[in-house]
């Protein structure tokens, strides 16, 4: 039973991973790509690790997977935030059909 639930989480995570990577190719500019990859790839990988935790139970492997989930949830958004700020400062423009850019106005 644990195996079935765990493998379900693994498959869900793989699905989100590949959707995030499709977003990395399809979406038009850096900020939209970061939206897709940060959300989908981070949560997909966390889901794979959660599946590992369920399959292995609270053993050494499972606790390491849990710690890895914590680190990813804390660090991935910060890295994405730093990358987007760097991209904006280095002068990457928003997509042509964007609605507004308050950050450019205030700078």
């Amino acid at each position, binding site marked *: 039973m644990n195996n079935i639930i765990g493998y379900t989480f693994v498959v869900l995570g793989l699905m989100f991973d590949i959707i995030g990577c499709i977003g990395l190719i399809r*979406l038009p*500019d850096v*900020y939209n790509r970061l939206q897709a990859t940060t959300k*989908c790839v981070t949560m997909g990988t966390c889901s794979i690790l959660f599946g590992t935790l369920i399959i292995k139970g609270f053993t050494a492997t499972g606790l390491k997977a849990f710690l890895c989930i914590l680190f990813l949830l804390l660090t991935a*958004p910060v890295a994405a935030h730093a990358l987007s700020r760097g991209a904006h400062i280095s002068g990457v423009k928003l997509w042509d*059909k964007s609605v507004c850019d308050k950050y450019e106005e205030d700078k």
Partner: protein
Amino acid sequence: MISRLILFVIGFFIWTMLSWPPDLQHAIIGVIVAAFVAFITGDLFTSRPANFAHITRYLWFVYYVPVFLWECFKANIDVALRVLNPKMPIKPGIVKVKTSLKSDTALTFLANSITLTPGTFCVDISRKEGVLYIHWINVKSTDTEQATKLIVEKFERILKRIFE
């Protein structure tokens, strides 16, 4: 000093989880390493250690985790539908929202929560004015007040009780 003790306890706890199952050898090394790390970087860890003694803050944190996970799940479904739709219904833009949070930890958690919730993504924080610049994949309103009501409020209410 109290800040160093808290960091020592947290460091030792993480070390024990990494070297599960616990035994004497790992415990001794863990005490040495955690004490060293706490001695060097302990005073950077927290500026108001008295906050760690309030039990209501932990209860609000326990309430915050399921809210956050549910928003995360919705965000994934939202982005997946936008990416897989052949017409790609996106209307991106960077909007400005206001926040009343002051402390560093609270602002970090607010930015992280905003980044992992549906359609929004934090680009920059200005701490002096209490302003966040947010990239929104589907802009519903460019007005600052309206955007604040839509994006920030539901997390700010909880985070104020945890970290302020």
